[in-house]
Every structure is written in C-alpha cells, then in structure tokens.
C-alpha cells in the first residue's frame, strides 16, 4: 500500500501541470463558449515574450513575468475578442472550434517568423534558484520538489480557488456565464456583453500566459510544439471537468498525473500492452470520458437560444449562376485543365509532374473532409489516421501477401471505412465539439498505440509499396501514375457529387439543419452519419494509400495528427462544401509554398528594381491558411467559395447590362404593331 501511495503521490506535481492547462481550457470554454485549441499557442507567445525580456534583454524575472502574463497575455485576449470571437458569439460551437484550430496553426508559425526558435534554450523558472543557478529543492512530506514544481502547484491552487470564488459568489462570474449562454438576452437586461466578453478573454488569456511561463522550464528548448503536446494531453482533464467545472478539471489533472505515476510504477515496461497504454493514457482517458462520462453524455453544447433566428448559410455559388455562366465556367475549366494536362504530359519536367501528382492525391484525401465536414456538418480530426490505415493496410497486403497494388489500395480503403464506421457508432451520441474531440482522441491513440507496432507500420523499416499495374499497363512512370491519380480523383469526385445529390446527401442536409425535424419525417440520423463517416474514411484511406505509392513506402510522418489538423484547416479555409474546394485545397497545399519561395519574389523583383527579394518564409503558408480558417464562422462555405459567389454575382451583373440593352431600331419592312383596342372613354 505504501508503494501504491508513493507512486501516486509522485505523479501529483506533473498532474498539476495538466490541471493548470485544463483549468485554462475550462475557463475559456465557460466564459467564451470556445473550446480553445489555441490555448497552447497563446501560452507559447507569452513564454516567448518572457524569454526575450528576461534572457535576451536582461529584465528581472518579476518584470518579465508582469510583462508577459499581466500585460501581453490580456492584450492577446483582448485582440482575439475584439477582432474575432466577439463576432462569433452566436456561431455554432463547431465554427468557434475551427476558428481556434486556425489560430493553433497560425500563431506559432507567425511567431517563428520573428523569433528564431533554433537559437534559444529553456525558459528560466520564476522561482528563485540556488547558488548553482539550478532550481531550489524543497523536501515536502518526505518528497523532493523543485522550485518550478512548487510554483506550478501554488499557481494551480490560487487559480482554482480564485476562479471558484469568482464564479460562485460574484455577480461578475454569473454575468460572464450568461453572456456565453446568450449575449442578446443579457443585453436585453442592460448588461454590456461586449465588455464582459472582452474581460473573459483577457482573463483566460492571462491564464494562458501564466501556463506558458510556468511550463517553460519543463522543456529543454522553447518551442511551440512542446506546448501543443501538453495541451493535447490536458484535454482529458478538461473533459473530466465536463468543460465547465473548474474543481473537477483540477481533480482530473491530478488524477491523470497520479495514474501515470501508478502505471509507470506497476506495469512492466517491456510488454506491448504497456508500451501502448502508458504513452496514450491521456487520450484513452479522453476517449472513454467522452463516451461514458455521464456529465458529457447528456451535455448540450453552449448555444445561444436565439441563434435560431440567424439566417441559414447561403447556398453554393454554382447553384445561383445562370446556365450561360455555368457553361462558360465549365468551358474555362476544361480549357485551363486541358492545357495544364497537355503540358504535364509533354513538356513539363518530372518536378511538376510530381507536384501535380501530390496535389491530386491530397485533393482525394481532402474530399474526405468535404464529405464529413461539408456534407455531414461534423469536424473530424482523425482524417490523417484514416489515411494512415489505408496506407498501412495496402502496403502490408502488397508486401506481405503479394496482393496487386490496386486491389490492395481498395482493400485498404475498405478497412479504413470499417474503422470509420466503428468509430462513428459509439461517437454519434456526442455531436458537435465532443464528437470532434473524440476523433482527436482516436487519432492520438492510433498514433501512440497502433502505429508503432511492426505489423501495422513496419516499425523501424517502413512498409514498401510499389507502383500499380493493370495487366500490361504499368503505372511505374511518373506521368502514367499521374494519369491514374487523376482518374481516381474524377471517380471519387463523381461519387461524392452523387452522394451529395442522392438520398444520403439530402438526409445529411436535413440532419444538419435540425436533427429532431429530420427524425420527425423518418430520417435515421445515425445511419446517415455512420454512412458519411465510413464513406469519408474510405476516401481518406484510398488517398493515404496513393500517397504511400507515390513515396514508395508508408511513412508514419506523413500521417501525424498535426498534419491532420493542418489538412482540416486548409480545406475549411478554402471550401469544405464542394469538390472544387477540395481540389483547390490540394492545389494550394502543393503550390502555395512554391508561390512563396519562387513566384512571389520573382514577380516582385520584376515589378520593382530597388530591392532584391529573396524567397519568403514557407512557414507563411501556415499563417495564411490558419488565418483563412478563422473566417470559417463567417463563411462556412470557405473563402474561395465566398469569393466565387461575389465574382459570379459581379459577372452576372455585367452580363445583365448587355442583356438589358435597348432593343434594336424597328425594321422598316415590318409593319408597326397596332395598339391594343381600348374601351372608348365615356
């Protein structure tokens, strides 16, 4: 028993790290209605400010702390509220989640443009150090703690108590929650919702700053990725607190830390079970909590009751244009596409062939996001996992059992579809952000538990996957493989369009509009969503398999959860509702870095002679696409689709001018039309 307690207690200091982050996530959700995946990015910015002030400019620790936590943190919150989340209060929770996803991608990359991570070391803790400049050690109840751990524990206690008091005993706390529930109703009562919302964001952002500074000494180097990792692990603790209870989130964090201590203490490290379970404990916990925690099962999302009066999102631009425009657009597309294809097949180098190959393959993968997000209205963060399942499945079948590559790709897609359906069944009662978090937990579990296994990914030797062939037709050459990828893209696109126009698509439209109303007319929402999940997973699996064929092997690094997040960001920012949007995203994913590094500087150097521009940082693409995703709430159809609607409307107006021109002068040979007979006036 002593040993049990000892292992459990050893996990408490690190549990406090989870607790601090979980409390921050809960505070943000409670006071803004946003499940803020960008919390870690905000923490990272404040840690950078602290580092620069203290380490690079020699400010005292207290001054650097005040600057980063008390000044910069709240300012970031104020900016986010003023320019972003204030306008999203009545948006669906999923739209707010996507917005925070965009920030998660954009903020660290924007910081890196000005702050070179590679030259920094770790952040100095706020607690006084000993004579060797090392964290001071303290003996507490027989255990050694260092100053940094003690600082985190004290901060967690103060924050939890302070926030508990704020929400339980003050009118301010009640009003902050009310503004989240319905800003319009609270404003009817004379409360300034904008001001309260801004305060809530400043408070939660200050907490992000506190977490950023206190967590800094945990990492050997100050890096945005490190913060993301900790935040992801702490989501389970926030879920334990039902995203709204600060004491439960605190307890969840501590329990998580203690569980890790106990598992490390008792489980043998050389078993496959342990090697999967321990690294993925937070994600397994999150997945199980989302499925079975009573507080979450019956939980309704924070949603403005008056949001029903908001107008529905506009229809697709393609549906609004005239037949002339439709044919004109298609003809233009055929001419441009045909020209590019002609040059790819005849003149352009292998580099461009490979680039377009990749763009086509990613377009196929991105169509899976079109299905699940654009059609079913759900955000899945495990599309990269489905792609990985398809890739590993196909590669293992081809390598181990000599299954023909094309058949292996199809079987891999089927396996991904089955996994997608199985994942959807228990997750369906969740919905909204909870379903999204479940997919996220699944992605992390797969990455930690299954992917490292040799029979899945090949372990240290990635599984090889050769080029396919059909009878005498070989696709070993880059151009022929491009043609094959294009054919598959066309087939998948047609399937997606057919499904969207067919029964399933209409059912999904109805369910997305109102699940209750859909049920009242006999639509089985669960079946429609399971179909969507399976279909989406199959597409991702097929695309993942093609990616492995292109690379010659299924590389785990191509399917990480972070890459999956970026895929979602790029698709929703460019257009998640149309096939065209997915293709645009695929092209953008491959061509935008080339634009930044080659075309843009070249263009600038041509049009102006006074400054020689070099390649722009390719990291800018993350910033652009991340910022694109934050427009999701305002333009859920995607930025390009929005622009397309505007340009279509403009073109139609111009065409109307020609159509409404005065009629030609009458032909003299034609007799004038007699005026109609009218009754004689009395």
């Amino acid at each position, binding site marked *: 028993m002593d040993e049990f307690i000892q*292992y459990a207690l*050893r*996990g408490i*200091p*690190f549990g406090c790290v989870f607790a601090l982050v979980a409390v921050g996530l809960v505070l943000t959700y409670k006071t803004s209605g946003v499940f803020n995946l960008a919390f870690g990015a905000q923490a990272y910015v404040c840690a950078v400010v602290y580092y620069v002030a203290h380490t690079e400019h020699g400010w005292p620790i207290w001054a650097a702390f005040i600057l980063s936590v008390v000044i910069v943190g709240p300012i970031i919150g104020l900016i986010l509220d003023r320019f972003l989340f204030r306008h999203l209060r009545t948006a669906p929770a999923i739209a707010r989640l996507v917005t925070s996803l965009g920030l998660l991608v954009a903020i660290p*990359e924007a910081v890196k443009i000005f702050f070179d*991570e*590679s*030259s920094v*070391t*770790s952040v100095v803790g706020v607690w006084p150090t000993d004579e060797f*400049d*090392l*964290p001071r*050690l303290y003996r507490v109840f027989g255990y*050694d*703690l260092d100053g940094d751990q003690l600082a985190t524990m004290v901060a967690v206690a103060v924050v939890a108590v302070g926030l508990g008091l704020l929400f339980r005993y003050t009118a301010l706390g009640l009003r902050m929650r009310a503004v989240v529930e319905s800003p319009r109703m609270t404003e009817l009562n004379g409360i300034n919702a904008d001001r309260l919302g801004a305060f809530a964001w400043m408070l939660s952002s200050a907490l992000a700053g506190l977490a950023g500074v206190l967590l800094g000494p*945990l*990492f*050997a*180097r100050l890096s945005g*990725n*490190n913060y993301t*990792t900790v935040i992801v*692990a702490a989501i389970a603790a926030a879920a334990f607190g039902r995203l709204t209870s600060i004491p439960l989130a605190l307890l969840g964090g501590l329990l998580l830390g203690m569980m*890790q*201590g106990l598992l*490390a203490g008792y489980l043998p*490290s*050389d078993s496959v079970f342990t*090697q999967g379970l*321990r*690294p*993925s404990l937070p994600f397994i916990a999150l997945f199980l909590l989302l499925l079975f925690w009573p507080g979450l099962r019956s939980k309704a999302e924070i949603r403005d009751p008056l949001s029903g009066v908001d107008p529905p999102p506009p229809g697709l631009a393609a549906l609004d244009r005239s037949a002339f425009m439709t044919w004109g657009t298609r003809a233009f597309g055929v001419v441009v596409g045909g020209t590019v294809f002609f040059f790819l097949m005849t003149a352009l*180098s*292998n*580099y*461009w062939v*490979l680039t377009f190959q*990749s763009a086509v393959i990613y377009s196929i993968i991105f169509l899976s996001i079109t299905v699940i997000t654009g059609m079913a209205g759900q955000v899945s963060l495990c599309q990269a996992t489905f792609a990985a399942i398809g890739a590993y499945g196909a590669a293992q079948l081809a390598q181990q059992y000599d299954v023909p590559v094309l058949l292996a790709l199809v079987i891999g897609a089927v396996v991904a579809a089955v996994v997608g359906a199985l994942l959807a069944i228990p997750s369906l009662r969740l919905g909204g952000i909870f379903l999204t978090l479940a997919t996220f937990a699944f992605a992390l579990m797969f990455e*930690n538990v299954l992917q*490292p296994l040799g029979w899945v*990914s090949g*372990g*240290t*030797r*990635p599984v090889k996957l050769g080029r396919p062939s059909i009878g005498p037709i070989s696709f070993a050459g880059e151009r022929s493989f491009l043609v094959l990828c294009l054919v598959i893209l066309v087939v998948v696109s047609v399937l997606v369009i057919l499904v969207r126009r067919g029964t399933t698509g209409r059912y999904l439209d109805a369910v997305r509009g109102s699940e209750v109303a859909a049920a009242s007319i006999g639509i089985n929402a669960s079946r429609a969503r399971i179909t969507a999940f399976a279909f989406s997973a199959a597409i991702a699996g097929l695309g993942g398999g093609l990616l492995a064929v292109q*690379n010659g*092997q299924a*590389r785990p*690094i191509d399917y990480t959860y972070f*890459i999956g997040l*970026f895929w979602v960001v790029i698709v929703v920012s460019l257009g998640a509702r149309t096939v065209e949007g997915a293709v645009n995203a695929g092209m953008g*994913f*491959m061509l935008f870095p080339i634009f930044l590094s080659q075309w843009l500087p070249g263009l600038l150097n041509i049009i102006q002679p006074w400054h020689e521009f070099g390649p722009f*940082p*390719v*990291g800018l*693409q*993350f910033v652009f696409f991340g910022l694109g995703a934050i427009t999701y709430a305002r333009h859920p159809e995607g930025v390009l689709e929005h622009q397309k609607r505007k340009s279509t409307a403009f073109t139609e107006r111009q065409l109307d001018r020609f159509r409404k021109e005065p009629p030609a002068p009458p032909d003299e040979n034609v007799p004038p039309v007699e005026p109609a007979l009218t009754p004689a006036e009395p």
Partner: protein
Amino acid sequence: MGKHPRQTGTRRRLAVVVTGVTVLALTLGAGFGGVATATDSGSTTTEEPAGGWPTVDQPGVSDTDIRVGGVTSTTNATQGRYDTAYDGVKAYFAMVNKAGGVYGRKLKLVAERDDVMLKNKQEVQALIDQDNVFAVLPVANIAGFSGAEVLQAQGIPAFGINYNEEWSNKDAMFGDRGSLCFDCPGIALPWVAKKLGKKNVAVLAYAVPQSKGCADGIVNSFEEYKGAAKVAFTDTALSFGNADFSVQVDKMKQAGVDFVTTCVDQNAVFNLAKEMRKQRLDATQYLPDGYDPEFMKQNGKLFEDSIVSTLFAPVETKQKPAGLKKYIKWIKKTGGPVTSNSITGWINADQFVTGLGLAGPDFTRQKVIDGINNGPDFTANGLIPPTDWSTAHTESDPQIGCPGAYMQVAANGAFKPIFVKDGKIFPCFDNDLASVPKNPLEYEG
C-alpha cells in the same frame, strides 16, 4: 563492392594507412590527376594539363563550375531544423574554391531547398530538373527521405545525415555514417561503462520504433558483452512530451543504477537530469546526441560528468586532426555556426570532393560513386572514424569498428574529450565480431 563485409583488423589497419597516404597526396595537390585542394597554410593547385582540363559532359558541370544542391528540413512544422548543414558545405566549398576549385572548376551550392511538409521527393526532383545539379548535398531530415529512390534510380551521388532506413542498400547514397542497425549489439557502450567503472545500467526509450530499436540495441550489447555492467532497469514505454521521471528515477535508485543510457530527445534527458538531481541519484547520463554547446552552456551544472558521444572529432579535441582544423578555420571565415549539423555538412562536402578526386578529371556521376565505393576508407582528414564504403551500405554490417568520440561535460558546460590514447580521439575495436572477446575489459581503445 565485392570485399568481404567484415574486414580483419590487419586489413583495416592497412586501409587506414592507405587512407593516410591518400590524404597526404591530396593535401599536396598531387593525387588523382589534379584535384585542387586547400591546406591550412594556403592553397595548392595541381597544374593544369597542357591540353587543359578535359571537357565533362555531365548534368550540372560546365567548364567553369560544378553545381550541387541540397534539401533539408527547415520550416517543417513537425520536426526540427537542419539547415545549418548548408553552412558546413559552404565553408568547405569556400576552402576548395580558394585553392582553385576542382579540375579548374568552382564548386557551387546552387540550391538550398526546404522540404517543408516532408515533400523531399519533389524537392529532390526539383534539384535535378530545375537546378540541374551534378550531385545532391547536403540532405538532412530526420523523418524519412522519400527522395532516396529517385537519386538511386538515376545514379546521382547524394551525401547527407543518415537517420533512416532509406540510406541503406543504396550505393549512390553516402551518409555521415554507414547503414544503421538499430538493434545490433556493439562493444562500444559496454566498453564505456567498464572504463567508467559502472555496474548497473538503466535504459530508457520512447515507445516508438526507432527509439525502442535503439534501446533494444543497448540491451543486446550488454547481454552480448558480459563482464562490463548489467542492465538493471529498462523503461521503453515513455511518451513524447512526458516530463515526469519521478517513478523511473525512484526505481533506478532502488536498482542501484549508476549509468543511465537513453534513446530520447533533449526534453526528456533534460527532465531526467532534473529528476536525478532531485532524488539525488548518483549516476552518469550517457547522451549520444548531447553535443550541443549552447544548450550545455546553460545547463552544464545539471549534466556535469555526463558522457557525450559524437560521430566526428569535436572542436574540443586537443590534437586536432587536419580535417577539424580546416573546418574550424573555414566555418569561422564564412561566418557559419559550429553545430553538429554544420560539421556533417562539411563532412558531406569533403566526401563529395574526395569522390571527384577518385573519379579523375573526366569524372561522371557513376565514376564518383564507384570511386568512393571502391576507394580507401573515408575519414574526412581525420574528422570521422574510417568508413569503408565497400561494406557500409549494407544494413547487415554493424559498423562497430570506431563508433565515435567521447567527451565528459564539465560544470560550466564545456566538453572535455576522454578515452583519448596517443592523440587518437576515436577508440577503435576490431571489426570482426567473431574475434571480439565477450569481455570489454580486453579493449583499451
């Protein structure tokens, strides 16, 4: 190719002697029909043949220059930066060009490509199609190099940092070390433990394939070479981002661990060191990737007495080999940083120029490849242990001969070379597994 995969000790020593002679010849500018090379005191150029240098009809080669380009991970959001490898290449090329270049041609690094989101296959293709390079160097990324197949298929010599399986079994690919064998046993670590008088070893690794494979290799080494120390604690189920080692260190204490080996990243060894200090575990950490002067400068006290190993002679080496002296001189001259990646870039460039020398004035890509593979062991003028490329491409050949250099970390973060004998920075072992006794005591380096 064609040699027996495991050379005898005599043959290896002979190869080292041949290499030494070759290096001397190169340094004097007399080797391989007129490669111009630089010496520390200035430059020496072989006189141009009476009829001038022969015309070479190869991609990326003109009468005035030889073009090369590289691909590294620089802005990749999912992994680290490796672009300082370019600085090493630039420094080496600056040295060679100052001495007149190679066969009357200047060496030009014309492209520094960034593989962004792991698009290294496309970037390699761009080096071939757009940048028209003769060879590809440096290549530096940690997470899979899908461009390897393209280079091998087209017979383009490539030089880079070898972290992955893709570098194995390809005779056109020359990493900074021979093919990796993650879980092969080796004499080196048991020998280090023995030299330090350590008895009980801990092995920690992440639950991911490469890390776990590395841990298996360490465990296998101590099992194979008994008589040094025994593995008393293993944990190969760590997760990325884990900063809590309290239970592990507690168990290490109970097991009497005095030597801690890890296959983890810098975050983990950093937090492990803090926990060891907290729980007052008197053990030495072995850090295979710990050669990071800036990091150690800040954290020297935490890592005091830890053992760091490198694949190359570190700049702290007292009796510096010629290659190291040149590196230090030219990296300063060209303003590049002293990092392990920039040293590797330098080694890659040296390997390339050596290959050109071996290929002769009418060089082709294939001649460069064949020259290196059939030539003497490569040492980058003493900067790295000898690599025999007739065997080093195959994974089955454990390159146990001279695994690297060893240093001890001082309290101020400085690195102090250890196990140096007669001025030799690399302890070497017989490369014939069959003749290796099971007791590491018999090796004195």
